[in-house]
């Protein structure tokens, strides 16, 4: 952690800002900004523009398209990306399966999958959660039984984000039901979504949007070549995947952008003789959230500086925990600033988009403290993994 940026990093940041604000279409950024649902095309267009500029997967090994950036530069890249309202490179590709394959897959599998993964020629989705195993991932029931050169997969996954657009799914499956512990006997398989027996059912969320799905596997035959690494080692890969990303775990730049928007909007909403931004209680709430956000960002930088590649760090749990809380606080404040205009969910009047979308986006992001390891799970990781408090 340093105070301020070196001249070199200043310049790097300027380049990033320039690129994101001029090379990514304004209409996509505006949609992302107000929380409109992005189309498949919006996401793909952005990802490919980033990839063409070498900015989709900077954290990967250089040989597979990564950048030899410092931690600080990687941080600035992502911060500026979020500040500019650019949809991030598809996380399932860039942050999840890509790093897993680069670390654990055979050379053959790397060569086959990493280039199209980086380029979004394959759209990945994640098959981890199951209906009966929310935070308790290890109790998953989807089975893969070896049959000659194939696995036969049966079971159900849920909360599969953007599964409706996906070409492939990386799934955790149980390959050894007799393993002594539930975490053992789990493997990671790559499955084409067009395989016979794969069915996707949409789940509608609180804001009416369709972003998650259930995925059913009914005797789906998967080539044994599609096994990642070794059989029954899937739990290790999953832990690596979940603990891998420290920089992205707390959406600092995204929150900065939203908080700046809150201020800009509050300065436009009339109250009494002035605006909402003149209201001491509202201004204090904004200032307090800026203090919280500053503490979070400084902690991200501090933890990132201590990063030892690949090893999950329980300290990243505090980033996930506080990141989701502050994200939710800011979105709640946005609804408060919209006030009565937040009641106009549906189109048809002159209510500005940011106000109309404020309540649905707030409601949607209640997921932030549930998905990807709920805040209760994060606290347990801290209390047992860091504080040594084991029940």
């Amino acid at each position, binding site marked *: 952690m340093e105070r301020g940026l070196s001249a070199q990093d200043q310049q790097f940041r300027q380049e990033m800002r320039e690129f994101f604000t001029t090379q990514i279409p304004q209409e996509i950024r505006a949609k992302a900004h107000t929380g409109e649902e992005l189309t498949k095309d919006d996401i793909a267009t952005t990802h490919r523009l980033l990839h063409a500029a070498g900015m989709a997967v900077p954290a990967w090994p250089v040989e597979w398209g990564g950048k030899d950036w410092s931690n600080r530069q990687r941080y600035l890249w992502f911060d500026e990306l979020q500040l500019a309202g650019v949809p991030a490179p598809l996380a399932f590709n860039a942050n999840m399966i890509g790093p897993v394959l680069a670390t654990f897959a055979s050379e053959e599998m790397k060569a086959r999958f990493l280039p199209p993964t980086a380029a979004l020629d394959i759209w990945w989705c994640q098959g981890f*959660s199951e209906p*009966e*195993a*929310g*935070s*308790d991932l290890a*109790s998953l029931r989807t089975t893969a039984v070896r049959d000659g050169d194939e696995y036969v997969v049966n079971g159900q996954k*849920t*909360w599969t984000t953007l599964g409706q657009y996906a070409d492939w799914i990386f799934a955790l499956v149980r390959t050894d039901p007799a393993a002594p512990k539930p975490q053992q006997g789990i493997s990671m398989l790559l499955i084409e979504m067009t395989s016979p027996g794969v069915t996707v059912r949409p*789940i*509608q*969320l*609180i804001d*009416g949007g369709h972003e998650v799905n259930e995925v059913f596997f009914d005797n789906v035959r998967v080539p044994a070549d599609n096994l990642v690494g070794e059989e029954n080692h899937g739990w290790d890969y999953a832990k690596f995947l979940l603990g891998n990303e420290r920089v992205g775990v707390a959406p600092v730049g995204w929150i900065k952008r939203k908080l700046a928007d809150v201020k800009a909007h509050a300065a*436009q*909403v*009339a*109250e*009494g003789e002035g605006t*909402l931004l003149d*209201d001491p*209680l*509202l201004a204090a709430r904004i200032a307090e959230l800026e203090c919280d956000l500053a503490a979070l960002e400084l902690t991200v930088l501090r933890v990132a500086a201590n990063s030892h590649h690949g090893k999950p760090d329980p300290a990243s749990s505090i980033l996930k925990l506080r990141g989701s809380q502050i994200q939710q606080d800011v979105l*709640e404040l946005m*609804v*408060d600033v*919209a*006030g*009565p*205009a*937040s*009641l*106009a969910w*549906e189109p*048809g*009047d*002159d*209510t500005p988009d940011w106000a109309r979308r404020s*309540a649905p986006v*707030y*409601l*949607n992001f*209640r*997921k932030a*403290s*549930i*998905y990807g390891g*709920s*805040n*209760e799970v994060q*606290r347990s990781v801290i209390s047992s993994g860091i504080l040594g408090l084991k029940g």
Partner: protein
Amino acid sequence: MFDAKLWRALAEMGTLGLPFPEEAGGMGAGPVEVMIVASELGRAGVRSPYAETMVAGTLLGDDALLGSLCDGSALVVPALTEPGRAWSPLPVGVVLSGGAASGVRAPVPYAAAADHVVTTARAGDSTAILAVDAPVSSTLDLAGKAIRVLAEDGEATVRRAINLGILALGAEALGAMDTALALTVDYLKTRKQFGVPLARFQTLTQRAADMYTSVELTRSVVYFAAMSLAADPDDEVAIARLKVSAGKAGRHVGQEAVQLHGGIGVTAEYAVSHLLARLTAIEHTYGDARYHLARLARRVGDYGALDLMA
């Protein structure tokens, strides 16, 4: 959005005219009965313009339209918010001058389903109450609209109408919280994780206890606000305290209900998400907790110890 069948049923039960005079087609009951009905609507998770109707009916005063409001033959909604402006009980940019009105109201709740709109306008130093036909969209531009002036100096009526509307909303919020808590408790009892029911996880049950505490405290405040309006329909302090307490509790109980449900809590397929959505909408209708807290804060120096029984 608007369920006409439900609305007819509510009309037939006499709930729409509950607090209005019998001679105008109402039931001649009062705020306590409004509270009871609204809390049941909230408990059932029914979304309806009930609070809006209480506001509109009060604003109508002795106008003939009140009869149609009471028997459900006309849906009359209030239009009290101005685009680009935070909540204000009195009009700012809507003006009545020389028999014509100007200014915009938006969003108008239930505009598509409504037959008539009651709104307010600045008329010199007074607040006029106007009736107009409902707009096709939820924006009501008054310029050039045919209006009927229901009252030329209606500020007291406006404040009374909002008081009653806030009571109905607060009661509805209470009912919604009751259901959110009940669903959560049921979920904790039945859902298993890590091989045991969620009710084994003390961190969850202690938070459920905090939810219960929030709900019970809100219940007391809602009851008291109803009795306060029954005694004095102009009691803005009891109503402001209701809005603050119900607003804080609604955020707490609604958010925790979703969180303790985990993933299914944010799906539209499960009721708890709709309860949070409704609690969020209630909080932002007729001024949020911050707005009402600031009003109360301006008065704290005017008296010493809190005295609810004065």
